[in-house]
């Protein structure tokens, strides 16, 4: 989220598309109802199903799964055609004025530089024209034919209301009504907020869905303002934190990147970071990259990381591919290239696509270690549960170790919520039986491995032997020690860079925030963006002052929000070029002639003059981007792509299947189906009564939603002779499930051109362990392919078939 949950109360219009906030985030959705009750805000829902969110919406329209880009680009087109643009914002705060290379272009659904062989683009043409002065060229009048704005105008011109009706199945009048409602928010004193989640991410072009809305929000001037923003409603309690701390194949804490083989050494690696500004006087905060990177390496290897060994740069593994993400790991596993696998509070057997493939892959492991508070399907993948897990136990040679861990109620620590609030919590209960904290388990494993290397030696033990482990109890580091490590401290006295006599942090003290981090090895910090969360003032994450002056929803005294306790990102953009708030009634920060003041921590140097320094300080342009250059693999603008399994061919290019640059493994390609075999579009989702695969272990939640079902329209039910509450079989090219049929008017057949598209909804909460009735998840059916940029599986649009079957009668 660029904003926070409590900020949603400040909005005039909420659009929920690519998500179902009321269902998945009821207590966050509270603030939508508050905005409706107190500001008279309106709520729009665009979804294939009439959801729980739609139940309290002011306007609803249905849309075919996987066609969002068409809807969004058409909306942008409508804004441009009807002059619903926040011009001052667009000119100054976006890269609309930047001139793009002549070679860049788009035709037949593809951008310039496509290589069908490599399934990749040569992105060299997706760049600005850079002048002799080393700066990108701009035309503030937006009249230059090659400026981003005119390219965008031309790009979206293809997306008409008629195309929306034809591709999305959304009635033209419904689309126009929504466009009209959104258009009102182009006024400087009106804001719209976008609340989305996996309904947009779980597509082979998920990132582009989100870009589409982000661009719309920029055109309306709704980024960085109160009641605006792009609000990703994240799923797990600390999914944000795990991403911040970089527990991913290609990440280093604080969104630094793992080196690849191309980064043969430290110098080469750094040469690709620390971006210089593309416009005069801009901040381009990543210029500080080296400070954060060195501080991280010092946090990892302490004294073993020296200028002499490039701060132990070679201790880090280097990637030969973009990502060893979970899809690739299971592909390798299935090919017998993985021997050991750890699942720490993760149940991949139900959460990743093509369960058949997952089972086969797990069966090829030597050892599977599962750390969890609950009995997971993954830990029991070898156990035969009849039709629900029909495996040949005896033939599975995988050894499985199941380790009992504590739950949230039994440990201390911090979690980062969707709004980047880092909230500290305290243990309340005694762990059951022999359950242990993950920190105790990880230490137990590490200390043993380290001992083995000390005793036996082995290949490159340095990174293990030199890992800093100076904890009071080496067998169980405390949450406090680890939190302090994340914040970082001075290893030598740290002085002000402008005034070398001014001591900022004495040796051994916690750094106040990341502005005190250095690239000379005099500081360490596990995760630079967390710097400030536990400094010499103590544990900022444990603060509990819920005062909210003027009810802005900021709550600066409540816990700590990274970065720098900032509650709304890009908040400088809430004020105009003179530093005055676009909407005086919704002031966030403002320029008082000398510095920025207000309700939030300015997202800019407090003394940066409004007319000189752009609000998007992380970008070398100083502006946001309507055109993303080469930063996304599948295009600088979103272009319509069908799902890999779709009942309809891509209107721009029938030859294209799915996302032309998405990674597809050969075996999986063979398992993609067509609509003549599998005529119905399926989409998967959560229900509010359950949390993933946890609450089926909970008797109350199991009572509230006891049994696996699928949802379908009355029309399709009639066509197939399916009865309400009867049993059906749903199958795809990859698997088959048995479910109760929930026949509803909330799903309607969609008319896409001359084709009628039926949609089947498949909730994801059932498996073969726990208190609820045994069932299946959609992942028995879903295709094994991910988003081209971040490898999020395509769970939201795929093809299935359905038929009624006999089963024991409904009670």
């Amino acid at each position, binding site marked *: 989220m660029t904003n926070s949950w409590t900020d949603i109360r400040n909005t005039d219009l909420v659009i929920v598309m690519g998500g179902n906030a009321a269902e998945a985030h009821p207590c966050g959705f509270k603030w939508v109802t508050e905005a409706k009750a107190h500001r008279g805000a309106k709520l729009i829902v665009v979804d294939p199903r009439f959801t729980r969110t739609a139940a309290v919406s002011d306007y609803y329209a249905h849309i075919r799964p996987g066609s969002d880009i068409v809807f969004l680009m058409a909306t942008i087109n409508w804004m441009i055609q009807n002059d619903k643009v926040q011009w001052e914002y667009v000119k100054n705060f976006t890269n609309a004025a930047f001139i793009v290379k002549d070679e860049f272009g788009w035709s037949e659904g593809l951008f310039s530089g496509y290589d069908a062989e490599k399934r990749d683009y040569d992105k060299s043409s997706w760049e600005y024209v850079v002048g002799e002065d080393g700066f990108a060229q701009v035309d503030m009048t937006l009249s230059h034919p090659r400026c981003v704005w005119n390219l965008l105008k031309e790009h979206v011109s293809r997306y008409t209301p008629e195309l929306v009706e034809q591709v999305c199945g959304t009635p033209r009048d419904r689309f126009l009504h929504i466009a009209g409602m959104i258009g009102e928010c182009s006024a400087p004193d009106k804001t719209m907020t976008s609340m989305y989640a996996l309904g947009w991410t779980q597509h082979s072009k998920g990132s582009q869905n989100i870009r589409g809305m982000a661009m719309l929000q920029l055109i309306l001037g709704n980024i960085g303002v109160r009641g605006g923003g792009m609000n990703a409603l994240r799923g797990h309690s600390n999914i944000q934190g795990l991403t*911040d701390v970089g*527990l991913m194949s290609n990440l280093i804490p604080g969104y630094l990147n793992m080196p690849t083989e191309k980064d043969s050494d430290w110098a080469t690696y750094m040469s690709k970071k620390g971006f210089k500004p593309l416009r005069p006087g801009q901040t381009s905060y990543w210029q500080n990259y080296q400070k954060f990177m060195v501080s991280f390496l010092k946090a990892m290897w302490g004294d073993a990381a020296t200028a002499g060994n490039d701060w132990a740069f070679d201790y880090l*593994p280097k990637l030969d591919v973009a990502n*060893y993400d979970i899809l690739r790991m299971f592909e390798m596993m299935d090919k017998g290239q993985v021997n*050991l696998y750890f699942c720490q509070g993760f149940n991949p057997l139900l959460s990743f696509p093509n369960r058949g493939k997952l089972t086969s892959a797990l069966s090829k492991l030597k050892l599977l270690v599962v750390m969890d508070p609950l009995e997971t399907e993954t830990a029991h993948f070898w156990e035969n549960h009849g039709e629900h897990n029909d495996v040949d136990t005896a033939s599975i040679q995988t050894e499985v170790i199941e380790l009992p861990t504590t739950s949230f109620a039994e440990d201390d620590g911090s979690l980062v919520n969707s709004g980047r609030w880092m909230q500290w919590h305290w243990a309340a209960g005694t762990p059951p039986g022999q359950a242990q904290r993950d920190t105790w388990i990880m230490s137990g494993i590490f200390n043993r491995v380290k001992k083995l290397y000390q005793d036996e030696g*082995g290949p490159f033990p340095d990174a293990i032997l030199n890992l800093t482990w100076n904890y009071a109890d080496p067998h169980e580091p405390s949450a406090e020690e680890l939190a302090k490590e994340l914040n970082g401290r001075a290893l030598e006295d740290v002085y002000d860079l402008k005034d070398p006599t001014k001591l900022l942090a004495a040796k051994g003290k916690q750094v106040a925030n990341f502005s005190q981090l250095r690239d000379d090895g005099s500081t360490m910090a596990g995760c630079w963006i967390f710097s400030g969360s536990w400094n010499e003032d103590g544990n900022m994450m444990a603060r509990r002052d819920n005062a909210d002056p003027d009810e802005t929803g900021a709550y600066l005294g409540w816990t700590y929000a990274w970065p720098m306790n900032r509650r709304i990102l890009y908040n400088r953009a809430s004020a105009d070029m003179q530093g005055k708030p676009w909407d005086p009634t919704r002031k966030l920060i403002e320029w008082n002639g000398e510095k920025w003041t207000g309700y939030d921590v300015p997202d800019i140097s407090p003394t940066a003059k409004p007319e000189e320094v752009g609000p998007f300080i992380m970008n070398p342009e100083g502006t946001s981007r309507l055109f993303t250059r080469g930063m996304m693999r599948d295009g600088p603008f979103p272009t319509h792509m069908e799902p890999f399994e779709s009942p309809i061919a891509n209107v721009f290019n029938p030859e294209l299947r799915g996302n032309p640059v998405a990674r597809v493994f050969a075996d999986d390609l063979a398992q993609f189906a067509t609509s003549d075999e599998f005529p119905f579009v399926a989409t998967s989702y959560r229900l509010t009564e359950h949390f993933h695969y946890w609450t089926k272990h909970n008797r109350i939640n199991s009572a509230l939603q006891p049994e696996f079902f699928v949802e379908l329209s009355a029309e399709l039910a009639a066509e197939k002779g399916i009865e309400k509450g009867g049993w059906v079989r749903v199958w795809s090219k990859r698997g088959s499930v048995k479910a109760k049929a929930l026949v509803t008017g909330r799903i309607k057949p969609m008319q896409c051109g001359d084709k009628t598209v039926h949609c089947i909804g498949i909730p994801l909460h059932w498996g073969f362990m726990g208190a609820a009735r045994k069932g299946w998840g959609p992942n028995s059916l879903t295709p094994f392919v991910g988003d081209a940029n971040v490898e999020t599986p395509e769970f939201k649009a795929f093809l299935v078939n359905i038929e009624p079957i006999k089963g024991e009668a409904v009670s």
Partner: protein
Amino acid sequence: MNIDLSRRGFLRLAGAGVAATSLGAMGFGGAEAAEQAHVRAFKLASTTETRNTCTYCSVACGILIYSKGDLAAGETAEIVHIEGDADHPTNRGSLCPKGAALKDTVHSQTRLTQPRIRRPGSDKFEEITWEEALDKIARALKDDRDANLIQKNEAGVTVNRWTSTGFLAASATTNETAWLTYKVVRSMGIVGFDNQARV
């Protein structure tokens, strides 16, 4: 209060004191129970309150955990109730159907309480000690890393990459647990590292 009342009503009906006593002796108490009975005793009286955060989605609602026994004071603590924290800016005391039932997850019948191992081909888990489990895991890690760590690629670039072992981290753990996990996993050179961020 009602005792007198009922007895009055009762006497009027019986019409004779003698009958009253004899009938009274025959279980008039039934009505008397009505008098003592009123609302259920408040079940949180004399419990310990601990502030925590809901473990489910990332709205991160504030919750209050009520326990018999105070963990902070070194006692064993049994969780008896969980409800929303009215002081929390986001949820203001409210909770969703999952959060409102958190207690039942903590006390789930399918919670793990003992390390277990499933041997190759076996159809059941056997209990093992933590020592056995951790030793076995460390040994397996060491052996696989020794065998499969790639120190240099064809071009001779140092890569120190280990791809034959993978690790999935939990997005419900704390940042502190995540950081320790990161240190352990990265220091070994594991690249097959991921979490629920993709799903």
